[in-house]
């Protein structure tokens, strides 16, 4: 009887093919995302102007950043926009999905109508809505033409509500996808849940709120990743619709970064601003992402 001991092979070569196949992912993660981030952070402590150069100036760029009214306005705008956008996309997306899930007729037609703007870019979205919200041509002009002379709906040229003008366009473009994700989630819910809820006499809204939504956690996670990453990165839409105006009322951090890196030719300032953005993202996303995706190793 054989009793020789076979040694554990070098763990580097276990599943070698899987590791080889993952090289693009590993390189992207390490070189582009980590490498690019580290590079950005390092150069945020320099006084680089047009070209990156390693002349360290300590925290100067950060001090300046946090004393710049435009940056502060950008942060505030992004927070308002982000919170509103999250709430509205999730709510509208979910309600629409719930409506479509009532075994209605023409479901696919409605679905197509709600989803099609997703195929259009933010630039296009921004242009169309700029056109529709333009007081001289668009909705305001139309309603006044109907005889309601005092009607005012001029979000893109009014500082206090410009963010809603952008939100209208963003929701138009993005809720379709959210609706689709939610619909898919609803379809994945066991029919028996509905039967049980009906027998127990639980009203429909309660069933949705307390039973169905908690069951859809994975969908909400995916949706959240998609919406939230879109919010942090919002840029094109603002540029196409308002260029950040009027005043600084629709400035966003990504635009600040871009403007200072490229048009102000002050890379150091742009990098400092991006570092702050990255830091915020890291603080919020990493613990969550690790819990969500890191702890799965033990399955099986």
């Amino acid at each position, binding site marked *: 009887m054989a009793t020789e001991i076979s040694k554990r092979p070098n763990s580097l070569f276990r599943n070698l093919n899987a590791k080889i196949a993952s090289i693009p992912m590993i390189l992207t993660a390490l070189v582009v995302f980590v490498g690019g981030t580290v590079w950005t952070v390092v150069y945020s402590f320099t006084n680089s102007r047009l070209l990156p150069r390693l002349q360290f100036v300590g925290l100067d760029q950060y001090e300046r950043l946090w004393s710049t009214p435009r940056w502060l306005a950008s942060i505030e705008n992004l927070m308002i926009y982000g919170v509103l956008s999250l709430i509205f996309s999730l709510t509208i997306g979910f309600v629409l999905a719930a409506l479509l899930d009532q075994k209605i007729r023409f479901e696919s037609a409605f679905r197509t109508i709600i989803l099609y703007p997703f195929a259009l870019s933010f630039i296009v979205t921004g242009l169309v809505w700029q056109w529709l919200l333009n007081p001289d041509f668009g909705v305001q002009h139309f309603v006044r033409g109907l005889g309601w002379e005092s009607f005012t709906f001029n979000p893109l040229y009014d500082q206090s509500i410009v963010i809603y003008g952008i939100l209208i366009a963003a929701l138009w473009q993005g809720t379709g996808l959210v609706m689709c994700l939610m619909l898919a989630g609803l379809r994945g819910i066991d029919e028996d849940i509905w039967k049980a809820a009906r027998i127990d006499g639980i009203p429909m809204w309660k069933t949705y709120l307390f039973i169905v939504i908690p069951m859809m956690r994975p969908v909400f996670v995916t949706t959240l990743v998609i919406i939230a990453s879109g919010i942090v990165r919002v840029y094109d839409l603002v540029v196409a619709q308002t260029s950040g105006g009027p*005043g600084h009322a629709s400035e966003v951090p990504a635009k600040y970064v871009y403007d200072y890196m490229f*048009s102000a030719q002050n890379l150091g300032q742009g990098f400092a601003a991006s570092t702050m953005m990255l830091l915020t993202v890291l603080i919020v996303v990493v613990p969550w992402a690790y819990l969500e995706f890191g702890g799965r190793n033990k399955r099986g």
Partner: protein
Amino acid sequence: MRLRFLAAALASVSFTSLASATDLEVTHWWTSGGEAAAVAEFAKAFDATGNKWVDGAIAGGGNTARPVFISRITGGDPMAATQFNHGRQAEELVQAGLMRDFTELAEKEGWKNFVRPVSLLDGCTVDGKIYCVPINIHSWQWLWLSHKAFADAGVPVPKNWDEFVAAAPALEKAGIVPLAIGGQPWQRTGAFNVLIPAIAGKETFLKVYQDKDEAVAAGPEIAKVFKAADDARRMAANSNVQDWNQATNLVITGKAGGQIMGDWAQGEFQVAGQVAGKDYSCLPGLGVNELISVGGDAFYFPKLKDEEKTKAQETLASVMLSAPTQVAFNLKKGSVPVRGDVDLAAANDCMKKGLDILAKGNTIPDPPRLNTEDTNNQLNDLFVEFFATPSMTPEDAQKRYADIIAKAD
């Protein structure tokens, strides 16, 4: 038989043209009607030398285009020639050794002898070497006025800034926007920078921008400028356009009374078939202080590996500066040629005014030439906020203005 002959002839033709013709890619952000017509003159002249101008226009202004240019130059895939505003925009690219030195050509052709004012070449000079070709002189100090608008409002066309401000209520009553200013940040800063020499004089202007004198920036002279800016803000409150040429278009169509904009606006009037003095007026220095700033565009030539193309770069540089091209280009562009020795008989009223002032030497440097782009952007941020926020007092704005000047280098 004949066919074969034809084919051979064609082949030889294409062969010769291949041997001598070099494609040069030239990038710029000139895409409005007048600008495109002007660029076409360059392209025509360059193509006439047997080479080929490959046009790489990027719309959306310098802020969209410059990052693309810079990325391509630093990314190792440079174009053959590219536009920058001359001044400090390309300084670092030159220092990094990415741009071509044209000193030799400049000396051979004697640029110093005919480029007027000579200070334009200074903007191209780094460490005593010339790195760019200035191609035009632009000045900002112009107030463009629509005769139609004032006729509609029933008031005479103003002769200076103060009259213009006084006429504003009449224009408004007639449903006309007194002052058109586009939403783009640089237009606001530009307008303010025009107000400084007009209201506070050349000395103050130089103290602030050349010497970066914080005390002057915070002082009473600039306070007057901010008062004027406050007027401008009120007059421009209803101008709902973004692009500068849309604003110009409001003046052309008489929907707005006037616009503070550089001489390039003239190209738009020209394209629209308007006649200076009859359909519109131009007041240099806002009609208060007749002086103009000297700024403009320049072409830079990145270092290339291809020898043919390197040679063609020289051809292009010569063509751009040659007298006929300068005239043709600048007439279309609405700017003043950089050569002091060309005949501008074809120039219209406004351009002649500019040439006069230039000849008298009543010039100031263009603020963007004196400031880094960083400072320019900070000023943009300030004026965007100022113009859009009626609640922001001129005093508050001046405090921040002085702050920016103090920190500028």
